[in-house]
């Protein structure tokens, strides 16, 4: 865990934060560059305007074609702007300077750029110039670019600092946020490591803010709940299988040993052989039942489902077991409404076996004199099969467990049965999407298996 925490760069949240910061920075720089370009263009435009205005102002003095006035105005302007921010030049058509700070004979008419070397001006200072003819003379007005450049530099500098600041904030903030998320991911990872080491009780701590990590954690916890319930079930089943199969296997071994002894003594072993046969049959039956339940739970049979009349199945089972119950000192009756069909989508064989298991369960666990009743009720949505008896019932706290594989009430440990009958009932019910309800009838037990009704319902 420490290794994972120390290497911040490997953490997904931090990587995400970094990627996001990088993308944000890229966008920031791009927009900055555009702003800079726009600003720079605007500044140049304004400078050009000022130059042109000054040029027009000076040129206006020549309106009366008085060259002396023009020369004087240029000289005044040149003198007025001492700091060489603005320089002027007036040349005649031969290129001789008439007035101004410099000679601009070589500059073309219109806007141009040049680098002036003038006394008192740092070498390499750039100027923006506008030349235009005033009468026969060429008037050039040039403004230094140093102010514009200074503004641009300030813009660039502030932009650079902002970039640095944002980068720092993004990385630091990303690291903080990432480490918070990372702590929660670490908690999940730690829980999963616990689980993989067999501590199935471990659960991911939830913050309760309802975010996605909490959501996922909640689902993982729910899955772990189910897993541990399954494992508990499996453990119980394994223990029960071990017990229920070990006992007949032990008996089988004893029978065979006694048969071997008898054979050595030359005695007849046909009794032992018959016993061994019975025991091995019992073991096989238990295994068969387990396999059958597993196959039903696997659900392969669903492909063969058809609409089955449960009423007819109940009738058949009632008919088959009525005599069996009578011979056993019990009674079995069906309360079916004649000529009513109750269709469910299912497998006839499995439904027969399910109902037969329920009836046999009642027969086996109820004392003589018990009345068992079968019935079917339903409406447009559900079809419910009821098996009711007035026997001893099941203690309420046990009713949840009786459908577990190989579960047997303590009171029925000594009666025959594999403890798989009701598990099979549950497996068949689950396969059909049916629910099972146990009802304490005082006295007696009512089992209701409620199926979704098939579409072809009708009288």
């Amino acid at each position, binding site marked *: 865990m420490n290794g994972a925490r120390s290497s911040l760069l490997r953490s997904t949240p931090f990587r995400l934060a970094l990627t996001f910061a990088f993308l944000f920075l890229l966008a920031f720089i791009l927009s900055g560059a555009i702003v800079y370009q726009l600003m720079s263009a605007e500044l140049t435009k304004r400078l050009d305007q000022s130059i042109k205005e000054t040029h027009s102002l000076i040129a206006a003095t020549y309106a009366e074609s008085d060259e002396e006035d023009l020369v004087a105005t240029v000289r005044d302007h040149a003198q007025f702007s001492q700091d060489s921010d603005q320089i002027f030049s007036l040349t005649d058509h031969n290129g001789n300077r008439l007035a101004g700070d410099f000679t601009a004979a070589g500059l073309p008419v219109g806007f141009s750029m040049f680098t002036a070397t003038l006394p008192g001006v740092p070498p390499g200072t750039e100027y923006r110039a506008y030349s235009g003819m005033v009468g026969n003379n060429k008037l050039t007005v040039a403004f230094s670019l140093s102010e514009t450049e200074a503004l641009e530099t300030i813009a660039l500098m502030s932009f650079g600092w902002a970039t640095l600041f944002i980068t720092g904030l993004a990385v630091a903030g990303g690291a903080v946020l990432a480490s918070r998320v990372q702590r929660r991911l670490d908690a999940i990872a730690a829980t999963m490591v616990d689980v993989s080491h067999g501590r199935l009780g471990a659960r991911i701590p939830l913050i309760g803010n309802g975010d996605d990590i909490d959501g996922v954690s909640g689902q993982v916890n729910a899955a772990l709940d189910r897993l541990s319930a399954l494992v508990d079930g499996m453990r119980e089943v394994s223990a029960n299988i071990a017990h229920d199969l070990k006992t007949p296997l032990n008996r089988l071994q004893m029978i065979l040993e006694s048969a071997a002894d008898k054979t050595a003594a030359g005695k007849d072993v046909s009794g032992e052989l018959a016993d061994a046969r019975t025991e091995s049959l019992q073991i096989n039956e238990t295994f068969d039942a387990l396999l059958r339940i597993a*196959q039903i739970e696997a659900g392969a049979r669903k492909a063969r489902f058809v609409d089955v009349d449960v009423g007819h199945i109940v009738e058949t089972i009632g008919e088959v077991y009525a005599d069996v119950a009578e011979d056993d000192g019990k009674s079995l009756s069906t309360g079916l409404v004649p000529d009513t069909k109750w269709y469910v989508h299912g497998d006839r064989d499995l439904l027969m076996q399910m109902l037969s298991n329920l009836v046999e369960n009642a027969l086996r666990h109820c004392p003589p004199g018990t009345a068992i009743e079968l019935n079917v009720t339903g409406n447009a949505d559900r079809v419910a099969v009821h098996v009711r008896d007035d026997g001893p019932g099941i203690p309420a706290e046990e009713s949840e467990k009786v459908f577990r594989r190989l579960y047997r009430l303590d009171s029925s440990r000594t009666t025959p049965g594999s403890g798989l*009958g009701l598990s099979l009932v549950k497996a068949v019910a689950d396969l059909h999407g049916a629910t099972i309800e146990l009802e304490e009838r005082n006295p007696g037990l009512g089992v209701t298996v409620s199926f979704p009704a098939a579409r072809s319902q009708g009288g």
Partner: protein
Amino acid sequence: MRLLLIEDDPRTADYIVRGLAEAGHVCDLLRDGHDGLFAATRNAYDVIVADRMLPGLDGLSMIKAVRAAGVRTPAIFLTSIGGVDDRVEGLEAGGDDYLVKPFAFSELLARINALGRRPAAQEQKTSLRVADLEMDLIQRRVTRQGQAIDLQPREFSLLEVLMRGEGRVITRTMLLERVWDFHFDPKTSVVETHISRLRTKVDKPFEIPLIHTVRNTGYSLHAPI
């Protein structure tokens, strides 16, 4: 009868072949699905007994191929899966019966006998007769020594299955399948109860019993030997 057994497990095969020989049947044993297919289509057998899990060609595909070749020899599947779908799959593939391993040999023998002696042409019988017991299949009436016996519909079916298999052993499982359509093993004495009821009506009022219990296996209906 001449039988074809396709089974790859040597112990099971040995157990079956020995039992069949003792019962007076001739049995060809093959261990591979392809060989089985070849033999079943080349030679005339009375019954084919095929394991589901075979090397080469599995039992299901083998019987399908045998049927596709137009051979109608009755076939029994042996399956060790104890599967809920095996019976349906087996019957759909063209099998006539199926048996889940481990099985009692008497069960297999009873089923082979039932299949092998099935009349070639399914002639429509209108009545059955064993000794002084008569069954009218049209009017669904049973008489013995001329006296009418009143039977429940299910008892009638039970007696019919026993009479059709006159002299042969009908196992408990066969009765459950044929009379009640139960394809599982009930834990209570369903068969015993109904046989006992039937005996009360068919045998008890008369001197000679016709329904005989075959220990550990099932029942057989026949005239006294």
